[in-house]
C-alpha cells in the first residue's frame, strides 16, 4: 500500500515526479474581479481626473506632491491592513502620529539630541505604545475597537500635555529632507527630447526597479511551472508585468523631470516590498491571515494567536511613529492637532483596497492602491477647485461603493461566511 501521506516536505522530490496538469488551460484565463477591480478602478479614476484637470494631474510636480503629501497615510495604511486582516481595527493611529511627532520634537528641538538617536527613541516609543494597546487586545481580550478608542483619547491628551497649545519646531534639516526632500542628482541630467531634462539616478532606479519586478515574476512563474502548477498564459503574464512597468516608468520619468526621487518614496517602496514579502511568505504573515480567517481554527492549529495579535499592534505603533516623524518634519513642527482623522484615512485605504470587514482578506499593495485612490481624488478635486466638503462627500461615497462592490462580488461568487 502506498503511504497516505504524500512525500515529506523535507525530502525534496524531483519536481518531474509530479505529473503536471495541463500547463495552460484556456479556462484559467482568469480575471478575478475581487482582486483586480481595485486596479481597474484606480486607472479609471486617474484617467477621469486627468481629463477633468486637462492633464494637470499628471504633471511632474503634481505627481511628486501626491506622493509626498500622502506618504504618512500610506505608511499607516500598511500597518492598518495587517490589523484589519487579523480582524481588528486601530482607531488610535492619528493620535499616535501626534504623540510620536511631539516626542520627536521634544527630543530633537528641545533636547537637541542627534537626530538619528532621537528618531530611534521615537520609534521605540511608538513600539511601546503599540505594545500597550496590543497587551489589552491580545492578552486581556478587550475588543480592539474599545482599546484603540481609548488610545485615541489618551494619546491625544498626552500630545496636548507635552505640547500645550502650540507647536514645537523647527526640525533638523535631515528630518525635513527625509519628509520633504529629494535625492541629490549626483549623476546630472540627461535630455529626453521633447520632455526636457531628467535626472539620471532617478531614471536608473526606475529601470532597475522594472527589471527586478520582471525578473522576480519570471522566476516565480518558472518555479511554478516546474511544480506543475497552472499559471497565466504567456501573453497575459507579459501584460501583467508590462502594465505596472509602464506605470512605474511613467511616474519615474515625471519625477525625474521634476526634482528627483523623493526620499519618502524610497522609504515607502522599501516598506511596501518588505511588508508584501512578510504577508505573502513569512510564517508570521501567514498566521495573520489564519487568525483573521478563523480564530478558533487558528488556535486549534497551534497558531500563537495572542502573540500574533500583540505583535501586529507593536508593528502599528512603529509605523505610526515613522509617520509621526515624517508628518512633523514635513510641517517643520509638531502640532497638537497633528494626525487628526489619519486613522480614518488609513482604514478607508485598507477597505477600498479590498480588505474584508470580517478579516482574513487583504493585501499590502491593495491598501496602498486604496490610499492612492483617495489621494488622487483629493488632489484632482482640489485642482479643479472643488470645495473641501465636496471632496469629503466623494471620498465617503467611494468608500461605501468599494465595500459594497466587495460584498457584492463575494455574494456572486458564493462565498458565504
Amino acid at each position: 500500500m502506498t503511504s497516505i501521506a504524500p512525500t515529506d516536505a523535507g525530502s525534496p522530490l524531483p519536481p518531474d515526479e509530479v505529473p503536471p496538469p495541463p500547463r495552460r488551460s484556456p479556462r484559467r484565463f482568469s480575471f478575478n474581479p475581487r482582486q483586480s477591480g481595485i486596479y481597474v478602478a484606480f486607472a479609471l479614476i486617474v484617467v477621469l481626473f486627468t481629463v477633468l484637470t486637462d492633464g494637470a494631474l499628471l504633471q511632474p510636480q503634481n505627481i511628486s506632491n501626491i506622493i509626498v503629501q500622502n506618504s504618512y497615510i500610506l505608511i499607516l495604511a500598511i500597518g492598518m491592513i495587517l490589523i484589519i486582516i487579523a480582524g481588528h481595527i486601530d482607531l488610535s493611529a492619528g493620535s499616535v502620529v501626534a504623540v510620536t511627532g511631539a516626542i520627536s520634537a521634544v527630543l530633537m528641538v528641545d533636547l537637541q539630541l542627534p537626530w538619528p538617536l532621537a528618531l530611534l527613541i521615537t520609534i521605540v516609543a511608538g513600539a511601546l505604545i503599540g505594545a500597550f494597546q496590543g497587551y489589552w487586545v491580545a492578552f486581556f481580550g478587550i475588543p480592539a475597537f474599545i482599546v484603540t478608542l481609548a488610545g485615541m483619547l489618551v494619546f491625544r491628551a498626552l500630545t496636548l500635555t507635552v505640547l500645550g497649545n502650540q507647536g514645537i519646531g523647527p526640525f533638523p534639516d535631515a528630518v525635513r529632507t527625509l519628509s520633504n526632500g529629494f535625492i541629490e542628482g549626483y549623476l546630472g541630467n540627461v535630455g529626453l527630447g521633447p520632455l526636457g531634462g531628467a535626472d539620471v539616478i532617478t531614471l536608473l532606479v526606475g529601470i532597475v526597479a522594472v527589471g527586478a519586478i520582471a525578473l522576480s515574476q519570471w522566476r516565480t512563474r518558472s518555479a511554478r511551472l516546474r511544480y506543475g502548477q497552472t499559471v497565466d498564459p504567456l501573453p497575459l503574464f507579459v501584460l501583467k508585468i508590462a502594465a505596472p512597468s509602464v506605470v512605474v516608468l511613467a511616474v519615474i520619468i515625471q519625477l525625474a523631470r521634476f526634482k528627483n526621487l523623493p526620499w519618502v518614496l524610497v522609504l515607502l517602496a522599501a516598506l511596501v516590498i518588505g511588508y508584501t514579502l512578510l504577508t505573502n511568505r513569512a510564517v508570521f504573515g501567514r498566521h495573520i491571515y489564519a487568525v483573521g480567517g478563523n480564530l478558533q481554527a487558528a488556535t486549534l492549529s497551534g497558531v500563537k494567536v495572542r502573540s500574533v495579535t500583540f505583535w501586529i499592534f507593536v508593528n502599528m505603533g512603529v509605523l505610526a511613529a515613522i509617520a509621526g516623524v515624517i508628518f512633523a518634519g514635513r510641517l517643520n513642527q509638531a502640532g497638537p492637532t497633528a494626525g487628526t482623522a489619519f486613522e480614518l484615512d488609513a482604514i478607508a485605504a485598507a477597505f477600498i483596497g479590498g480588505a474584508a470587514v470580517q478579516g482574513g482578506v487583504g493585501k499590502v499593495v491593495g491598501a496602498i492602491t486604496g490610499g492612492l485612490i483617495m489621494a488622487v481624488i483629493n488632489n484632482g478635486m482640489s485642482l479643479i477647485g472643488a470645495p473641501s466638503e465636496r471632496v469629503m462627500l466623494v471620498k465617503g461615497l467611494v468608500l461605501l461603493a468599494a465595500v459594497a462592490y466587495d460584498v457584492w462580488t463575494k455574494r456572486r461568487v458564493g462565498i458565504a461566511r
Partner: protein
Amino acid sequence: MASEEPDDILRMRGITKTFPGVMALQDVNLSVRRGEIHAICGENGAGKSTLMKVLSGVYPHGSYDGEIVFDGEPCAFSGIRDSEHRGIVIIHQELALCPQLSIAENIFLGNEQATRGLVDWNRTNYEAEKLLARVGLRERAVTPVLDIGVGKQQLVEIAKALSKRVKLLILDEPTAALNDADSAHLLDLLRGLREQGITCVIISHKLNEIAEIADSLTILRDGRTIETLDMRAGDVTEERIISGMVGRDLEHRFPPHESRVGEEALRIEDWTVHSPTQPDRVVVAGANLVLRRGEIVGLAGLMGAGRTELAMSVFGRSYGVNISGRLIKDGAPIEARNVSDAISHGIAYATEDRKRYGLNLIEDIKRNVSAARLGKLARRRSFLGGWVDDNEEYRVAEGFRRSLNIKAPTVASITGKLSGGNQQKVVLSKWIFTDPDVLILDEPTRGIDVGAKYEIYTIINQLADEGKAILVISSELPELLGICDRIYALSAGRITGEVTRAEATQERLMQFMTQATHEQEQPA
C-alpha cells in the same frame, strides 16, 4: 401515481433550479400526504436543502421552474414570510434562536403578542408556556435560551413553529446535534404532532431514525427524484435506502480491516478536567485510556458526557481549567501546555465542528493543509518564523488532493465551497501533514454523506496501518462498532467501560454510556 391522490397536502412538480454553472434541481417531484411524516434522503449535494428552500420561499417564485401546490392552491411565494403565512415552517439545522432572549421572546420573535404596539408580556409568557407544554419542554418561558441545551432549543424551535399555526413542518437534520435520549424525545414529539394532524417533512442522514418514524420516503440523488418509498409496511431496510441514495449497492458500509496493534503510543492517566465557566464542576473525572500504534480506538458517550472536553484538554489544554493527570507518550511523560506543544509531541486533534473550529473557509485548500505545521515548509526559520516555500506547499497539498481523493479542480480552490466530505478530507490532510503519532478524530463523519463516509473510514484504516494510534469519537454507535478495535464508554466524565470489537454491541455500550447519568437525566 401517488401525486394524483386527493389527500396530498403538498405537490411539487417539475421543480428545476439552476445556479450559475450548476443544475441543483432537475425536474424534481415531491408529493406529501396530509398528516404523514415524510422523510427526504440523499447524499450531501443531492439537492435536499435546495428543494426545501424552494418550498419555503427562500428562493422566491420565478427563480425556479415548476409548480408548487399546497393545500389545494398553487403557490408563488416571494419570501419566507409568505410560506409561513400559509403554514409552512422550516427549522434549519443551525438553529435560528437568539441566545440572549428568553424562550418566550424567541417563540414570538417577529410575531410579538402586542396590544396597540406594546408587547403584552403576560400574554406572551402564558401562550409560550402552553406551547412548551405541547412540545413537552419543562422549562419556564422566561428562561434565556442560552441556559438550555441544544436538544431543548430544538423543542423551542418546534414550539415557535406551532405558534405560527403550522400545517407543514420541515425539519432539516433535526437530530444531528442531539444525543440519543433527546433524539428519541424529538421523534416521539413528531409522532404526537402527526396525531394532531400536522404534516412533517424531515431531512435526515440517520437512516435508523427514518426507518423508525417515517411513513414515506423520497430519495434524491444528483438533483433528481429517484423514488418515493412507502415505509409503513416496515420492509424497507437501511441497505435498500442507501443503495437508492448512492445509486450503487454499498455492500458494506465499513471497509474490511484487520489492525496490527503495536506498541503503546499514548497513555492518559487519572485525567481530571474542570469546567472553565464553573471551576468547581468536574467535566472529566480520573479518566484512564491507552492508545496503541496501529489500533483504532473508539470513545462513545452521550452528548455532555465529556468526550470532546477530554480530547481537547489532552490536546494542549485547549479546554478546561485545573487539569490534573499524566500524559505518557511512548513510555515517557510529556507536558502539552498549549496546542503547538501537543502538535510537536505528535498529537493531532480534528475537531467535531470543522466549519467553526477546523478550517479557514475563506482560504484555499493548500493554505488549510499547511496551517497546523507551516514551519515545516519554511526556510531560514529564525526571522518572523521563516519564509514559506509556496511551491512546496502546493506540491504537498496536491499530493493530499490525489491520495485522499479531495474532489476539487485544484488545491487553489476555496475550502468554503467544498462539500462536507471533501472539507473533512482537507482537515485530515492538515493533521496528517503534522506527522502525528496519535490522531484524535472527533465526529469524523458528522454531516457527510454515505459515500464520503466510506472514504473517510478507508483513510482512517490506512492511517492505522501506517502505525498511527487513532482515537475516534462518535455519536453513532454503529460507526464505532464498524471501525474500532476497542471502544471506551464515557459517562458523566468517567470511563465506565472498555470493550473489544468482539464483545461490543450497541446495547452493551449504551448500558455503559448511561451508567450513573440516570439521576441527571431526570427533570428537576
